[in-house]
């Protein structure tokens, strides 16, 4: 069964690398529904898998200059604070409630990515904007404007809390925040999210690790598979159209939401 988990985690790693996610949207439902783990144990294993996905893909994207480490670090301060709070709160919340929260977040993000008007609007500049350097998908390195820096950071606090409570890396929330609200191109947002989610997941994972709540066989199986998948995903990403990426993201989000709602209702 652990080998099956490794294979599933490979798929999660590919999805994670493609969409700027950690793969937790696959790891958590699989661990709870297929392997019968409670949400806390599944979250702990998932967060370690998220670190693996992030590390595997971020290293490749960083060499290509795709992510903006500076945007990532700035947003990550509030995200990590949220993650620390979320990890402590998770021990006191019921299983079904965590599944419900997870499903709600996925529905919201799927809707946003599916129905955002023409994708990213052009950056507006203004008081809460900044200039950052990254490399476009056509290989051109240059400065770009990012809007709503501080309000985007505030929204990322919630992303961090949800990350730790539900075992996902927060990319499902942070990618839409960066793309739609902060006007960062989808591939840059996804690559930056891949870098960020490693730190977010670390903040949650280290709490579970220190407290002895990690089940090593499940966590290691997820992490090994996720790392392999993330490496494959970075290669596939070069050939995927940005508009298609958003469409596929929303399909995955709605599917996972449905599974977690069934789990919250005790059906799965």
């Amino acid at each position, binding site marked *: 069964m652990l080998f099956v988990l490794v294979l599933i985690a490979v798929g999660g790693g590919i999805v994670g690398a493609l969409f700027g996610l950690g793969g937790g949207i696959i790891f958590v439902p699989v661990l709870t529904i297929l392997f019968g783990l409670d949400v806390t144990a599944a979250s702990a294993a998932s967060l370690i898998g998220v670190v693996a996905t992030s590390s595997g893909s971020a290293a490749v994207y*960083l060499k290509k200059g795709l992510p903006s480490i500076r945007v990532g670090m700035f947003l990550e301060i509030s995200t990590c604070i949220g993650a620390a709070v979320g990890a402590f709160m998770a021990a006191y919340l019921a299983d079904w409630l965590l599944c419900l929260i997870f499903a709600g977040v996925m529905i919201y993000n799927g809707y946003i990515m599916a129905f955002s008007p023409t994708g990213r609007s052009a950056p507006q500049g203004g008081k809460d904007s900044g200039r950052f350097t990254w490399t476009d998908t056509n290989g051109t390195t240059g400065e770009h404007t990012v809007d709503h820096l501080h309000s985007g950071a505030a929204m990322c606090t919630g992303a961090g809390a949800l990350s730790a409570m539900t075992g996902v890396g927060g990319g499902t929330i942070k990618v839409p925040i960066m793309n739609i609200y902060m006007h960062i191109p989808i591939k840059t947002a996804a690559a930056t999210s891949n870098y960020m989610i490693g730190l977010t997941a670390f903040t949650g994972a*280290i709490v579970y690790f*220190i407290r002895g709540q990690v089940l090593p066989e499940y966590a290691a199986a997820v992490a090994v598979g996720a790392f392999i998948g993330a490496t494959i995903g970075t290669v596939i990403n070069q050939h995927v159209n940005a508009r298609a990426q958003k469409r596929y993201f929303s399909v995955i989000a709605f599917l996972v939401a449905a599974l977690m709602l069934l789990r919250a209702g005790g059906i799965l």
Partner: protein
Amino acid sequence: MTAGPPENRRAAVALQYASYAGVAVMAVGLVLIAAGVGETVALIGIGLLIIGPVLGLAAVLVTLIQEKDWKWAGTAAVLAAVLAVTMLLSYFF
């Protein structure tokens, strides 16, 4: 050759080494678990893996200090402090 700002390369190297080491040790640990030997090796691999992002951040901080980019070095330092406080809180509570 690495594109983008200079901190990208060092962060990439730190992430790569930590993740390869962690995944390799975990893979060995999984085999040992399957053989009924124990979970310690897998736990060590997990520890190596999850420390990777922090090592990447440390590499970014060092690079920004060397570049004398004090604003962003300060941002990296604040982020490192948040991570450190979180670890301490989890240890004591």
